C-alpha cells in the first residue's frame, strides 16, 4: 500500500545484497541478430570469412530507425544466416566463430566533455554504440530521446495545441519485475559512468529536475550511489519504493505514483507527460559508451528459477546462447517445465535454448513444474472482483475477458482493452485461473489487425 494502491506483492523478490556477478566464459561462437529493438534491421558490412575484432562494426544502419551491430568476440565470420530470437521470430543474423584471443578493436576517441558536444553529435554517438532502451518495447535510445516525427501535440480543453516539454528525468534503480535484479544490483555498485550518463540525458532532455527511484529493501549503497551521483548533478529527490510491489516499476504506474501524471494510454509515452524515464542499466551503458567510446559488448542479466543449480546475476557476451549461459552457472538441478526469457510475470516461454542473448533480454528463468501454474482447464469467471482490485490501469478484467473470449471486440475496446499494460496482476490473483492477459492480447491483436 502507500504509494501504490493497486497491483500485487510478489513473494519472491531478487535480493542483490552481497552478490557478485558471475562472468560467463568467452563463448566459442556468438550469433548476433541484425535487429535487437523495434525498428529497421542493420545491413551486414562484412562477408563470411572476414576476421573481426571485439567492438568492430559488422553491420551498419541503413536508416534512422536502425542501429549498427558490433562484434562481441574476436574471430571470423562463419555464417550470415537466420536465427531464432527471444521474441520467437526468425531474424537474419551474423555468426562469429571465436579465435579465443579476445582482441579489441581500437575505439573512436572517447567523449571528453558532454558540454562541448552538440545534441546531434550526442545522439550520433548513442546510435553509433547501438544503445537501446529497456522495457517491453525496446527502441533505439536515440529515437526514444529524439523522436523523428514532430513532438506529439495535445489539445487542451480550450482547443490550444501545446507541445509537452520534458521537465523531469527519472532514473530508476528498480527492475520492472521483482524477480529481476540487474538494476538493483547496479544500484549497489559505484560507477563512474553514471554521472556522465546523467549529464548527457540532462542535456538532451532539458529536464529541470532529476529523480532517483530506489528499492527500499536494497542495501544502503544504493542510496549512497544515487546521492554521490546527485552531488554532481541537480538531483531533486530520491524516492524509495517497495521493490517487492509489482508492477511498481512500470513507467505508467511509477509516474502516476510519484508525479501524479497519467500517461495517455494506450499509445502514450512518458514524454507525453513531460517525463524521461530510464533505468540505471541504460544510463550506465550510455555513460560508459560516451566515456570509453566502446559499444557495450557484454550484458548483465538475471538467471533464476527453481530448476537451476545457482541463481544470480551473470555478465555474458551478447550473442552467447542461453543454453551456454545456463551451463556456465551450473546447469539444471531439476527438470525445468518452462524456460522463460524475461521475468516470470511478463517474459516469453521458450522451447529452444539455442536463442542468443540479445540486448533486449533482462533475464532467463528456468521454472520447475511446482513454480508454474497452468491455465489449462480454467474455470468460469466467478465474479469475485479480485482482478478489479489489483488492475493498475483500472480495468474490470473479469468482465473484459468474457467479451474477449466471445469475440466481442467492439465491447472489449469500449471497456478499454487497449489500455491494458499486460502486467499479469489479474492472472496472478484469479482463483479461476483464467488466462486473462492471453485473452486481452488476443483482442488487442484482433483490434489492431481490423
Amino acid at each position: 500500500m502507500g504509494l501504490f494502491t493497486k497491483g500485487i506483492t510478489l513473494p519472491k523478490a531478487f535480493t542483490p545484497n552481497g552478490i557478485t556477478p558471475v562472468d560467463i566464459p568467452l563463448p566459442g561462437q556468438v550469433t548476433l541478430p541484425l535487429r535487437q529493438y523495434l525498428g529497421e534491421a542493420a545491413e551486414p558490412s562484412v562477408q563470411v570469412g572476414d576476421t573481426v575484432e571485439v567492438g568492430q562494426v559488422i553491420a551498419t544502419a541503413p536508416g534512422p530507425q536502425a542501429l549498427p551491430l558490433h562484434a562481441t568476440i574476436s574471430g571470423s565470420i562463419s555464417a550470415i544466416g537466420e536465427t531464432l530470437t527471444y521474441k520467437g521470430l526468425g531474424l537474419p543474423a551474423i555468426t562469429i566463430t571465436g579465435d579465443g584471443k579476445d582482441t579489441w578493436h581500437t575505439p573512436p576517441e572517447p567523449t571528453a566533455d558532454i558540454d562541448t558536444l552538440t545534441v546531434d553529435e550526442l545522439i550520433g554517438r548513442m546510435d553509433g554504440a547501438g544503445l537501446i532502451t529497456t522495457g517491453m518495447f525496446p527502441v533505439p535510445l536515440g529515437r526514444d530521446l529524439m523522436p523523428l516525427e514532430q513532438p506529439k501535440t495535445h489539445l487542451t480543453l480550450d482547443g490550444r495545441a501545446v507541445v509537452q516539454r520534458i521537465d523531469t528525468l527519472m532514473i530508476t534503480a528498480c527492475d520492472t519485475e521483482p524477480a529481476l535484479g540487474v538494476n538493483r544490483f547496479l544500484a549497489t555498485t559505484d560507477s563512474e559512468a553514471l554521472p556522465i550518463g546523467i549529464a548527457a540525458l540532462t542535456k538532451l532532455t532539458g529536464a529541470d529536475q532529476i529523480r532517483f527511484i530506489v528499492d527500499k529493501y536494497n542495501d544502503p549503497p544504493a542510496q549512497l550511489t544515487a546521492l554521490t551521483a546527485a552531488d554532481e548533478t541537480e538531483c531533486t529527490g530520491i524516492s524509495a519504493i517497495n521493490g517487492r510491489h509489482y508492477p511498481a516499476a512500470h513507467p505508467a504506474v511509477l509516474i502516476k505514483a510519484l508525479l501524479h501524471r497519467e500517461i495517455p494510454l494506450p499509445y502514450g509515452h512518458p514524454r507525453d507527460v513531460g517525463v524521461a524515464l530510464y533505468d540505471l542499466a541504460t544510463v550506465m551503458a550510455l555513460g560508459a559508451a560516451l566515456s570509453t567510446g566502446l559499444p557495450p559488448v557484454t550484458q548483465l542479466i538475471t538467471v533464476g528459477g527453481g530448476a537451476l543449480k545457482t541463481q544470480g546475476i551473470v555478465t555474458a557476451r551478447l550473442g552467447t546462447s542461453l543454453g551456454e549461459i545456463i551451463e556456465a552457472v551450473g546447469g539444471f538441478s531439476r527438470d525445468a517445465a518452462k524456460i522463460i526469457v524475461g521475468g516470470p510475470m511478463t517474459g516469453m516461454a521458450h522451447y529452444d535454448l539455442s536463442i542468443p542473448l540479445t540486448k533486449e533480454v533482462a533475464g532467463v528463468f528456468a521454472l520447475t513444474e511446482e513454480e508454474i501454474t497452468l491455465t489449462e482447464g480454467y474455470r468460469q469467471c466467478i465474479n469475485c472482483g479480485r482482478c478489479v482490485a489489483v488492475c493498475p490501469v483500472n480495468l474490470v478484467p473479469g468482465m473484459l475477458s468474457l467479451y474477449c473470449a466471445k469475440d466481442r471486440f467492439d465491447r472489449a475496446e469500449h471497456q478499454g482493452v487497449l489500455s491494458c499494460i499486460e502486467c499479469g496482476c489479474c492472472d496472478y490473483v484469479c482463483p479461476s485461473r483464467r488466462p486473462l492477459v492471453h485473452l486481452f492480447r488476443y483482442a488487442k491483436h484482433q483490434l489492431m489487425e481490423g
Partner: protein
Amino acid sequence: MDSANLIVSMSPHIRGRISVERMMLITISALIPTAVAGLYYFGIKGLMIMVLSVLTAVVVESVIEWLTHRQLTFKDYHAVLMGFLFALILPSSVPWWIPVIGSGVAVILGKMVFGGLGTYPFNPVLVSWVVLKLSWGERMSLFFSPHSTDQVLTPLMAIKEDPALFYDYELMDLFVGTQAGAVGTVCGLALVIGGIVLVSTKLIRWHIPVSFLIGIALVATILHGINADMNPPALFHLITGGTLMTAFFLAPEPVTSPVTPVGMLSFGFLAGVLTMIIRLWGAHPDGSFYAILIMNAATPLFNNLKPRLYGRR
C-alpha cells in the same frame, strides 16, 4: 535438457496460491464458529439440519452433472458451502425433509439451471429460502427458543406485532444468541468472528459488509431519533435477524455481487436501506434476505459504476 518437455504459453508464468477451492474452504471455516454456536443452542436438531443439507447439495449437484455429462465439481466445495449456508438460515424447528428439499432446490433452481458456479444471477441459497418460505411459510416461521423446543417469536417478529416490545430484549442476549432465531443467525458474536476472518484474509472486500451495516444503522438511527419509544436503536437491528449473516456471508457472495468499489458500496448501502424498509413497512419481519435477492437483480447495473480508466478523462 530435453526441449520436448518444455511448456510454452503466455505470460504470466507464475500465479498466486488462491483458487476457487481455497476460497470455498476459507468461507466454510469462517462459518465454523457459527455452526458451533448453532450446535450449542439447538443440539442434535441443528446437526441433523446441517448434515442433511450439505449431503443433499453435494449429491444433487453430482447427479445433475452426471446426467448432463459434465465434469463433477464437488471437489471445489461450493456445494458443501451452499448446503452449509442453507442449513444455517433455517429455523431449528423444521422437519428433516425441509433441508433436503431446500438444499436440492438451491442447487437445481439456484445454481445448476444457469450453468453452475459463476453463472447464476441470484444467490442460490436465498432463492431456495424464498421457495420454501412461499411453499411452507408456517413451518419456516416456527422458531424454537435456544436449548428447548418451546415455540417463541423471534425479536423481529415480536416488534412487528408491537414495536415497543424491543424494550424486553437485552442487546447482549441478542448478540450472544440466547434469543430465538435460525440455526446460524442467533449468535451474532460467531458471525462477527467469521466476518473478521473473511475480511482479514481478503476473501471478501470490506465494502459490501460495511456499507450494508451502515445502510441499516443509518435508517434505524434516524427513526430512533424521531421516535425513541416505537423504534429500536440501530444496534438492535444490526444484531437481530439475518443482518450479520447477510452482511458477511450472503451479500458479498462473489458471483451475485458487484465487483467495482463504487458498485459494491452502493450495492451494500441500498441493500441495507431496503432491508429496513421491508422490516418496518413490509409484510415480513426480516427483510435482509429479500433485500439481497432484489439487489442481486441490479448487480449488472452496479458493475457499470466503474473506476476511471488510467489515462482517460
